[in-house]
C-alpha cells in the first residue's frame, strides 16, 4: 500500500532559526496536505498542494510539492515559540476519497 515517510522525527531549534520537514511518498500523489497539531490538541489543516512543482506561502511558512508529485516540504522561516507542535504531511492518491496516508510527523520544539 501507499507509504508516506516524513523526516526528521524531532527537531529542536532556537527561536529565530529556520526549520524544514520533508515528506516522501512511495507512490505518485494526487495531492498532499499539511497539518499542524499543537501539544495536547488535534490536527489542524494548513494547506493542500495539487499541482506538480507547486509552491505556496503562508506568512513565514513555505510549502512545496515536488515535480514528480512524490515529495513535499514545509519550511518555516525565523521560528517563533508559537510554531511549537507536530507537523504532519498527508498524501492522497488517485480517487481514494479522503483516505489520506499520514507521515509519522515532525515534532518541533522552539527554545526561546
Amino acid at each position, binding site marked *: *500500500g501507499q507509504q508516506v515517510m*516524513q523526516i526528521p*522525527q524531532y527537531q529542536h531549534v532556537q527561536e529565530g532559526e529556520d526549520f524544514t520537514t520533508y515528506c516522501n511518498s512511495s507512490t505518485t500523489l494526487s*495531492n498532499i*496536505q499539511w*497539518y499542524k497539531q499543537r501539544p495536547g*490538541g*488535534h*490536527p*489542524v*489543516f494548513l494547506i*493542500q498542494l495539487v499541482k506538480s512543482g507547486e509552491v505556496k506561502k503562508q506568512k513565514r511558512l513555505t510549502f512545496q510539492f515536488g515535480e514528480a508529485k512524490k515529495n513535499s516540504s514545509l519550511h518555516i522561516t525565523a521560528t517563533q515559540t508559537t510554531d511549537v507542535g507536530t507537523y*504532519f504531511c*498527508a498524501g*492522497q492518491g488517485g480517487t481514494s*476519497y*479522503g*483516505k*489520506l*496516508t*499520514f*507521515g*509519522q*510527523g515532525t515534532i518541533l520544539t522552539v527554545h526561546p
Partner: protein
Amino acid sequence: DAGITQSPRHKVTETGTPVTLRCHQTENHRYMYWYRQDPGHGLRLIHYSYGVKDTDKGEVSDGYSVSRSKTEDFLLTLESATSSQTSVYFCAISAGLINTGELFFGEGSRLTVL
C-alpha cells in the same frame, strides 16, 4: 470548527471489555473517518464512511467495527479491547457533499486499556 464532538473524551477500561466511541457532527457532512494516533506512527486510518450504512476499512481495521445509522453519528466499537488498542482516537470529517480531501478533526478520545 466543523461541529464535531467526540465522546467520551477519556476512558480507562480493562482488557476484554467492549468499548464504543462516538463521533457526532452537526453539519450533515457525508464523509467521516476514524483515525488512531500513536507515537512514531502518525495518524492511521481505521475505518471510514461515505454515507449512511456505507462504510469501509482503513489500514488498521482489525479489532474494530463501525456503524453509521444516521448522517450525524459515526460509532467506533472495540468488541474486546486489548492493550494494543490503547491510543488516542480522532474522528474526522471531510467538508461538503463532494470530498475535498481537507479533513477537520474532533478533539480526540484518549483510551487506556489496562
